[in-house]
């Protein structure tokens, strides 16, 4: 319970006190100028923070697209890396080269995904909302990472309840963000 708070360093182990400089300090004539400089500096930092926040808000949509937007903007996106979100609408399959292929959809627009990379989590299956990271290669989205978005609802796994596959409760959310 007794921790090493810095003030206790005033006391030496032999019990005497370390000397404290009690000489009166001359009031600085540049104090008010320093104060103004500090305020300007602080204002500058705040403006910079605001700028970063604004940039993040406006560019977030570019980095995180829904399938329909990503398809519509395919030409201007080119081969840039970005994230695309949608719901898995076809049963994921493994092709001959070991890639996982499936389709995701958002607002009724579908996209073909070919995933080469780390295995997605066990929750990855038909009907789950996912975020894939990668780039367009022609009409196909080459994914390097699949992240499964779990929903806000938690349902007890009772024996009398049907499994997820038979009861896909996950729908594409209208998560449009700011952009």
């Amino acid at each position, binding site marked *: 319970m*007794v921790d090493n708070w*810095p003030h206790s360093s005033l006391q030496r182990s032999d*019990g005497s006190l370390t000397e404290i400089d009690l000489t*009166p300090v001359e009031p600085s004539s540049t104090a008010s100028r320093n104060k103004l400089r500090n305020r300007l500096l602080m204002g500058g930092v705040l403006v910079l923070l605001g700028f970063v926040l604004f940039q993040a808000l406006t560019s977030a949509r570019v980095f995180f697209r829904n399938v329909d937007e990503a398809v519509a903007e395919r030409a201007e996106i080119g081969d840039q890396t970005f994230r695309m979100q949608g719901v898995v609408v076809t049963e994921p399959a493994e092709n001959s080269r070991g890639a996982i292929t499936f389709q995701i959809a958002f607002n009724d627009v579908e996209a073909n995904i070919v995933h080469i990379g780390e295995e997605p989590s066990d*929750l990855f299956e038909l009907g789950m909302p996912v975020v894939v990271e990668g780039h367009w290669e022609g009409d196909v989205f080459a994914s390097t990472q699949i992240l*499964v978005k*779990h929903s*806000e609802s938690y349902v*007890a*796994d009772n024996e009398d309840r049907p499994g997820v596959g038979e009861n896909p409760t996950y729908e594409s959310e209208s998560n449009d963000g700011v952009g």
Partner: protein
Amino acid sequence: MTTEMSPESVSGPSSTDQSGPESFSTTASKVTTVLGWLSLASIAALLAFGLLISPPEISQGESVRLFYIHVPSAIVCLYIAFSITFVGSVIYLRKQSVFWDLVAGASAEVGVVFLGFTLATGMLWGKPTWGTYWTWDPRLTSTAVSFVLYLGYLAVRRLDMDPVARSKRAAILGIISFANLIIIRYSVAWWRSLHQGTTLDPRDTQLDDSMLVSFFLGLVALSLTFAWLVIHRFRVAWLEHQLEAQQLEVAIAERTASAGPTGLAAGGA
């Protein structure tokens, strides 16, 4: 809180007596003893409900149990701990009250521990559900920024400088850091995010009863534990403050004596 401090509990050891811990009064009181036992009891209940009684989740399975500590821990540090730091910082700047400065510091210190716990449990939960421990998602990123901000706040509190100026700087940082909590709160609404949104919608009937009980037990257990830790942490800081003030008085007395009758008037060293 101050009313529980008995006069002898702040006496501490005298400045020339480097004696053992028996000369320190305990930081415990009747209230904290009761609080400590209640914390233990609620943690036991949380373990029973969270690990044994509540069912696994339909798609996540067993990993849903992290929900009962991850979310309460986030609520305790982001809403309670850093709000106390914010309020304490504002009052300190207005009234220069040492009490509120120490409350702000104690709350931030324990809050950072809870925030670290929130990040750790979140990462452990992210791997089996999302498929990754970490991703630069708006909520994760803003929470990590807060963690660094409050670590910085604690670092400022330990700067080797004039205590009053140091407390002022800490208070200003305590207020600025609070702004980021608003970004964390609304990050899932402002940006597209992998992190789920607000879970506790009162109309949400999807949460199983025993899951809801487990969650609220988590909230109670972590809140009580937080309160217990903060009160003790504050009392240690308060004792240290008393000790420091006492040592300064002794130092001044020693110096006055050594300087002789005209020593201080001549401007000292």
